[in-house]
């Protein structure tokens, strides 16, 4: 029983060591990747998954249990990945050993040059065989061969070889490929990716809690967030008249954990800001109007920018141009009895909205609002914009262009003193930044350079071996050469002819 297991393991190990297995695993990985490109993936196309769930519940549950909605994070994808790693190592170690042995070993003599693929004999003008070999050595060296003098059963012989770089480059390439696989795991595992929205004028500290829940931390990440902070001074979005985006710029200042300035930053697409290994990428933006809610006696109940969001497209419905959609948000007033929520809906460009045109800029912002009373459900810890209004009762509504305010009667709300006034003094924007730390980047860059270098050497060089010997026949010196190539043999045949023509001028190869 034990020996059977051992046998099976040894067969498995031996087959893992073959190049064919490595290639097969790579092909398997690309098949899995194809599945991932055909089936909507979590995070990238949640809406499409939702659609499948509604239209084909069975298919959804089958896909879901097979991990097909998260191919690249599934256990079987990881399995292929790990097997590929092992297979590469198992392939590479013996090959590297063999390569090092071959590089160190002295070149051998060829006993019978006539038996080689390419062969030629011809008389030369040199007075002695020694002189002929000396000349041949120079010619071979000039053509990039490494030449050694060897002894062929008493006859001096030149052993020349070229193209060791091919195997070296190939090995470098494959080791670098392995390094890439390791770098991916290490980089993702030891880092994090988060998304954060910061309103103009606010300062945000890079710490776990401040991502709300929008952060994915790697498996080996040990909670050492940088604690640097970013103050956002301004966000600008510019569009061309055609509606095509022109620029998205977040302007601000970075500070180290002690509050010392790390300098002004401008974050734009393709131009992330970097500090303490943490990168900030421009990701999206939205509107955050300053909303002031006051009670009937003039007391301020709420005075803060409110992050507005646009409704997601509904599954099953055609996508809607984002620039025609209103911006929604909620202000919660938990101190009132019963509790009150003010639902806000803002249109950045009322004139454009009136004719159904997309709002390119916030040219004419107006806000509609609805006042609800009831239970805010604060114990459920939901994000503000997901407050459940269906259990609350609408008691009034209003309309505020920017710079003005509107008052609604709210009798029976304790703490509101009869009315609530909603003011909209200022429209700010918030910028959405992606915050990333990936410690594998340097590894990946080195590996990428090695891949290119290795590939170039491996594909560009060819292995050739040539032997030359000379002897005296009668009064003539006769030069004999033979050789073979491991790659591009037809080309070598031609090269050998020209090489021999140089070694023994005015003669023809046999």
């Amino acid at each position, binding site marked *: 029983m034990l020996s059977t297991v051992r046998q099976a393991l040894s067969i498995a190990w031996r087959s893992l060591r073959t190049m064919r297995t490595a290639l097969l695993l790579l092909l398997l990985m690309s098949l899995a990747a*194809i599945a991932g490109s055909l089936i909507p993936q979590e995070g990238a196309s949640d809406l499409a998954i939702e659609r499948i769930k509604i239209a084909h519940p069975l298919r959804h549950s089958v896909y879901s249990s097979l991990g097909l909605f998260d191919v690249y994070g599934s256990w079987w994808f990881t399995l292929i990945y790990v097997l590929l790693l092992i297979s590469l190592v198992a392939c590479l170690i013996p090959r590297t050993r063999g390569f090092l042995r071959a590089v160190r070993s002295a070149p051998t003599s060829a006993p019978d040059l006539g038996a080689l693929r390419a062969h030629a004999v011809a008389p030369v003008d040199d007075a002695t065989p020694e002189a002929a070999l000396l000349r041949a050595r120079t010619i071979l060296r000039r053509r990039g061969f490494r030449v050694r003098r060897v002894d062929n059963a008493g006859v001096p012989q030149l052993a020349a070889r070229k193209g060791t770089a091919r195997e070296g480059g190939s090995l470098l390439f494959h080791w670098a490929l392995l390094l890439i696989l390791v770098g991916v795991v290490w980089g993702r595992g030891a880092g994090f990716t988060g998304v954060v929205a910061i309103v103009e004028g606010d300062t945000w500290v890079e710490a776990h809690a401040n991502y709300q829940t929008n952060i994915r931390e790697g498996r080996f990440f040990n909670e050492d967030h940088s604690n640097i902070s970013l103050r956002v001074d301004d966000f600008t979005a510019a569009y061309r008249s055609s509606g095509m985006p022109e620029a998205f710029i977040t302007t601000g200042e970075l500070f180290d954990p002690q509050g010392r300035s790390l300098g002004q930053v401008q974050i734009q697409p393709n131009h*992330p800001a970097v500090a303490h290994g943490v990168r900030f990428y421009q990701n999206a933006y939205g509107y955050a109007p300053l909303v002031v809610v006051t009670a009937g006696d003039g007391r301020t109940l709420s005075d803060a920018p409110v992050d507005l969001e646009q409704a997601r497209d509904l599954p099953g419905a055609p996508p809607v141009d984002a620039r025609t959609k209103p911006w929604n948000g909620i202000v919660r007033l938990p101190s009132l009895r019963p509790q009150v929520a003010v639902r806000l809906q803002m249109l950045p460009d009322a004139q454009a909205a009136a004719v159904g045109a997309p709002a390119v800029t916030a040219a004419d912002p107006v806000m509609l609002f609805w006042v609800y009373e009831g239970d805010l459900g604060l114990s459920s810890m939901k994000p503000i914009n997901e407050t459940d209004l269906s259990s609350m009762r609408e008691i009034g509504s209003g309309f505020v262009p920017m710079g003005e305010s509107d008052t609604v009667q709210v009798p029976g709300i304790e703490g509101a003193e009869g009315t609530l006034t909603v003011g909209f003094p200022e429209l700010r924007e918030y910028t959405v930044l992606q915050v990333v730390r990936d410690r594998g980047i340097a590894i990946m860059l080195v590996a990428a350079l090695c891949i290119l270098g290795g590939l170039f050497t491996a594909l560009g060089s060819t292995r050739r071996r040539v032997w030359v010997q000379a002897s005296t026949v009668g009064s003539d010196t006769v030069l004999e050469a033979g050789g073979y190539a491991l790659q591009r043999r037809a080309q070598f045949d031609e090269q050998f002819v020209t090489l021999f023509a140089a070694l023994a001028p005015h003669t023809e190869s046999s």
Partner: protein
Amino acid sequence: MTQVSLTTFWVALGCYLAGMVAYFVYLAVRREAVYRVANTLAWIGLIAQLVSVIARAFAAHRVPWGNMYEYSVMSALIVVGAELIFVEWRAKVKTVGGFALAYAVFTMAIATMFFYRGPEPLQPVLDSVWLKIHVFAMIAGSSMLILGSGVVVPLYLWKRWREGKQAPAVEVSGSGEDAAAPEEGAPADLTSDEVHGGAPRRGILPSSDVLDRVAAQIITIGFFIFTFAVIAGAIWAERAWGRYWNWDPKETWSFVSWVIFASYLHARSTVAWKGKRAAIIALAGFAALMITYYWVNLGSASLHSYAGLPQ
């Protein structure tokens, strides 16, 4: 400038079309004069297209590879250019031109019918030096791979098939390129396709191993550039999105194509797999490239969907 670009585009397309016909006539009649006409037409078309691309760059004030129309045009340019240089000039193979021009005509016709957009500036996320490097390398690399796997390899397979039918009539020579070297200790090729060597050529196309070698050379160069392009793309993605690899459909399909062509190169250096099997792998690679270009750009939810199609 826009007008110059458009006019020269049509000149190039016309030359390619006429050149294609001439190449095919050459295949039928095998007159050197016909070949010279075909070759000249191809060169004139190439120069006209080069002018078209440069004029486009001036009209748009940026590099001329910012949307699918421009990408298609560049791809046709590089396929034709590489064919003229690597196949006709260096390898002295005169019979591939018509098929390369057919690809160029097909690509350009689709581009002008479905993808055309006037010259306009780029979206902010595309405005990067890495974009210029990544996209250009991608066009160059994939065009070389297309030329090798989609044009030369099918001809190789066809020629092989023809030679297989004629095999008994042809003298078998042992000095063929693929005859086993002493080191590999390989048996004589089992697929018995070594029917070329010094034997007189039969049929129109050069012997199959010449085509095999030319295809491999072009695919090798293409593979190297393609690898560089993927790496440059990863660097750009890192700058633009904060992730060097995201398994986005286009990245996935580039990876798939890369793996297939890597398999092709491995297969070619393996005795049992070289020849026909390797060629079939190359055909699969060509299919993967076409899927990457047409399906991913037009049919999938990809961050790479910058096709910039007319709305």
